[in-house]
């Protein structure tokens, strides 16, 4: 009589082959599990990408905010600017929001009379005649211009109102109202920073919870597929499969689903914020703002996280399947 031998431990490639065949034939079920991974990882990736783009377009966004703030001031003084005569005094260099404000006013067909500034649709006038017929005076530029008298600039205005974009001091008492506009106070800045911090905190929580849901979803889907396959597991054991082999089949299946799902998920999670920000800020701006190296790193993170979490979720179902006594696995009639 032959001597009793020991069952060989099959190479990973064999387990891989059988596992992949199972996925291919039960594609529908695999896709359901996969979609869970796709959603979880797409969410993670979109949050990361969104954060990156957000940081990159932060400056652009601040310029926009500042410009909006200033133009709100202007419209609250004079109403719609179309057809209105506005005078502009520029000392030194204009900031980006100031430039955007002037471009915006010109685009809305305000008649601009300017000192120290020229552009399309702008009439250059000497400082002494700046105020003639104008409804509002804007004082812009980074030069403190200490010697300039407001009285001279505002002479002849229809409504003597001046808006200064910087905290300039003038040697004389203004002949009308003087207000500073577009300046954010330290308090406002602190508030904005706090809001940003809380937003980051919230985002992190949502990411953690969504990943948890993904893991539980995968574990659940795999447990179901283990239950469905009790009979098959029992049959495999009858034919000489070791517990370790059964365990490996499920771990491989989950790893493959996790990897493919994460890959699709990260593409989706990349595309969405790119599209959303691209529409708002323009695609060239968004693409040039992206840091390829950091993006690749986070893609790698998503891929690793997705695969690792899928394997983690498979441990319990795989062990459950591996530990089954063949007879009881075969008895099931699912």
């Amino acid at each position, binding site marked *: 009589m*032959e001597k009793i031998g020991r069952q060989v431990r099959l190479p990973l490639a064999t387990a891989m082959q059988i596992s992949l065949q199972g996925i291919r034939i039960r594609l529908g079920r695999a896709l359901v599990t996969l979609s869970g991974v796709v959603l979880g990882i797409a969410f993670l990736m979109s949050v990361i990408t969104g954060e990156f783009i957000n940081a990159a377009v932060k400056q652009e966004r601040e310029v926009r905010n500042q410009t909006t703030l200033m133009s709100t001031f202007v419209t609250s003084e004079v109403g719609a600017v179309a057809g209105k005569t506005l005078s502009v005094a520029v000392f030194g260099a204009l900031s980006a929001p100031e430039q955007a404000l002037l471009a915006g006013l010109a685009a809305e067909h305000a008649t601009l009379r300017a000192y120290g500034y020229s552009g399309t649709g702008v009439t250059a006038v000497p400082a002494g005649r700046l105020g003639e017929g104008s409804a509002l005076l804007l004082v812009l530029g980074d030069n403190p211009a200490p010697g300039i008298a407001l009285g001279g600039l505002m002479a002849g205005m229809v409504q003597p109102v001046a808006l200064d974009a910087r905290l300039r001091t003038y040697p004389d008492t203004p002949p009308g109202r003087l207000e500073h506009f577009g300046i954010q106070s330290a308090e406002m800045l602190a508030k904005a920073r706090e809001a940003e911090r809380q937003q980051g905190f919230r985002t992190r929580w949502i990411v953690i919870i969504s990943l948890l849901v993904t893991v539980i979803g995968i574990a659940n889907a795999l447990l179901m597929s283990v239950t469905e396959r009790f009979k*098959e597991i029992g049959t495999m054991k*009858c034919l000489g499969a070791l517990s370790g082999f059964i365990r490996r089949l499920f771990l491989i299946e989950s790893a493959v689903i996790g990897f493919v799902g994460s890959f699709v998920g990260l593409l989706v999670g990349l595309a969405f914020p790119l599209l959303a920000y691209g529409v708002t800020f323009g695609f060239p701006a968004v693409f040039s703002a992206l840091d390829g190296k950091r993006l690749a790193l986070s893609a790698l993170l998503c891929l690793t996280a997705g695969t690792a979490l899928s394997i983690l979720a498979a441990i319990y179902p795989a062990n459950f399947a591996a530990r089954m006594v*063949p007879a009881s696995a075969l008895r099931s009639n699912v």
Partner: protein
Amino acid sequence: MTDRAVIIRARDVTRRYKLGEEIVWALQGVSLDIFEGEYLSIMGPSGSGKSTFFNMIGALDIPTAGSIEFMGEDLFRLPEDKQAWIRCNQIGYIFQTYNLVMVMTALENVALPMILKGDTRRDANAKAGAILERVGLGHRVDHLPSQLSGGQMQRVAIARALANSPSVILADEPTGNLDSKTGEEIIALLKSLQTDDRVTVITATHDVKMLSVSDRIAWIRDGRLERLEARANVQIDMGSMTH
């Protein structure tokens, strides 16, 4: 006949199932020696413990008490890899419900035990093809079980049981789901394994057609071995059974 080597020796095999509070004694101490190369039928009414005993001698379930010796070794003291080796190399299982892997073709089902044994996919497929040819399914190798008839599925299951040239074929009601004629064909096939390949064939069955081909019949009732009948003198005309 009694001088033949014992391949499976069951001693006081007991199996108790707990169903909540209730305890079911499926086997209450069955002792039986099974000889190498014999055709043994286990008969008994439904619920008498045939399948339970079948699972024990096939290393598919663990007895509550008692022992099974397989090839001289205490089956349930063996490490997992030796038990798996026995299941893979020494025993071929056939079930009433076929238990084919539904997502694999006939060929892949038959090749599976060889793959699990460590054969290459190529060798396994070639051998599997030849075995399917032998059981009369050469033209159905690429069909899925769902595309086969009951008799054809049972033939695939027999081919799979033969995959690694086992020394024992264990068949639990192999004809239970088949019509009378197909059942006869399957019985003839099993008998030919014993006569031509010197395989030990053990069947658990209700089917009286099985009686005439059996060397011995073990009658089980209420989890006990009631009597053991030898049928060594029965002559069977195989030609008339297969038409």
